[in-house]
């Protein structure tokens, strides 16, 4: 019987089954997508004369990187950087501390349904609101300065870290945690012994990554008045002091790279 079927199949071509089996649907989708893409590009309106004028300013800006001016605004740069670092560290610590319980609550495999829904709700709100929007709102409430920036970054950290922590907990090895539960451990002991060791490297890695993001964000938040190095950068642009702006950008790049290097070392150690 099975040989009969085999004989029919021998010599016939074989190919991987299509992702969309229906050929009409497949071609409609393909052609539709390409048509949409062409139409979309055609709506982008480029003013070439304006681009030509702008090239000059762009070149100036790029050239400024060859002679960055760290000196003439050294005081402003220094106080801006300091403010950014303070904002970053404070917001990261507060954000991470709040993220951990919310992350536990947002993991389906360890949290009961009502708590899960509340925590996922918090995560969703935090992730839906972009930093700049939150910062504009908080600047309106608390006035210009680093307090608004600090609160914005803490809020953003919660959405980011809780979500990723929860996902890591959801994909942990169930049996290791089960073994701890079987010993008669309390809930807190179960988290401490069965769950925490499994997610710790990722938690540390994500936290380092978030510190890195928070520092970069702190440079942006200054543009809407939330303090930090961004405020200094904004001023430099407003005054067409591209050499000072270049100096600030170089410092930001340097610090981000240093943080990246540091986080690499730390992550390797906690593996």
């Amino acid at each position, binding site marked *: 019987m099975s040989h009969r079927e085999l004989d029919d199949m021998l010599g016939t071509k074989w190919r991987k089954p299509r992702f969309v089996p229906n050929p009409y649907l497949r071609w409609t989708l393909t052609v539709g997508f390409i048509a949409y893409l062409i139409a979309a590009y055609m709506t982008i309106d480029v003013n070439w004369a304006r681009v030509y004028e702008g090239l000059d300013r762009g070149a100036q800006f790029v050239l400024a990187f060859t002679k960055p001016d760290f000196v003439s605004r050294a005081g402003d740069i220094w106080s801006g950087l300091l403010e950014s670092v303070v904002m970053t560290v404070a917001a990261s610590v507060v954000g991470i501390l709040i993220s951990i319980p919310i992350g536990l609550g947002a993991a389906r495999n360890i949290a009961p349904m009502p708590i899960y829904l509340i925590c996922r709700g918090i995560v969703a709100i935090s992730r839906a609101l972009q930093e700049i929007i939150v910062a504009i709102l908080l600047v309106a409430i608390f006035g210009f300065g680093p307090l608004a920036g600090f609160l914005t970054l803490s809020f953003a950290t919660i959405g980011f870290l809780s979500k990723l922590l929860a996902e890591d907990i959801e994909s942990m090895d169930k049996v290791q945690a*089960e*073994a701890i539960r*079987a*010993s*008669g*451990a309390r809930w807190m002991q*179960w988290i401490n012994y069965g769950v925490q060791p499994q997610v710790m490297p990722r938690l540390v890695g994500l936290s380092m990554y978030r510190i890195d993001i928070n520092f970069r964000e702190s440079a942006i938040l200054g543009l809407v008045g939330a303090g930090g190095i961004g405020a200094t950068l904004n001023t430099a642009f407003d005054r067409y002091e591209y050499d000072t702006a270049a100096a600030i950008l170089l410092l930001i790049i340097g610090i981000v790279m240093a943080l990246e290097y540091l986080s690499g070392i730390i992550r390797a150690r906690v593996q």
Partner: protein
Amino acid sequence: MLRLKKLVKTYKTGDQALKSIDLDVPKGQVLALIGPSGAGKSTMIRCINRLVEPTSGEILLDDVDLSKLGSGALRKARREMGMIFQEYALVERLTVMENVLSGRLGYVGFWRSFLRKYPQSDVDEAFRLLDRVGLLHMADKRADELSGGQRQRVGICRALIQNPKLLLVDEPTASLDPKTSRQIMRLITELCQERGLAAIINIHDVALAQMFVPRVVGLRFGEIVYDGLPTGLTPDKLTEIYGEEDWEATIEKVDDEDEIEAAE
């Protein structure tokens, strides 16, 4: 000492994993639970310490019905039952010592366990157990640095440090080579004898079960189809448990191996 009465487990999908199991395990008896994959062996063991919630029936451990306990009382009851797992289930990023001491979690408070400040008596017992299984020198190694056999020994220590009355052993040798498998089985049965512990050992290696335990229970489709001496497992019985196969080789091999064992 352990008594299952009409134990039933029906999963949400409607699968009946256990159909009215009745089983009596006297104090100090080691029994092997055999049966094909999906027969409900794992479910049965997990129902006893309620890692899986039974649907109905009674689980009497020294006349306490475990199936009706609230969460606090259940934690206390779980201390009486040590569990040993198929893939060892050690917490890989913790040290050997932390893994062994985690067996005491039911006895110590949160802060003690969080700060790893266990009572000296627990620490001494952990050292004693590690020495008994020959792993004292590994105490501060991380669990993921150990070989399979070593990990399972740590798993055994973790179960024993609970000072249990009963061991629940889920496929202890499934991921081990034949020689290590025997060493582990021998270790478990010896330790049970030394401490007068009862044990239920899930195992799919019939020959291995016959070699080490005095009582075999066969499970098929969630029902007990054999309960008796290991020598009573005739080809007919094995066919009843597992389905049609040529069993002569399996059974003969046992005898051969016993002779080799004796010659060693």
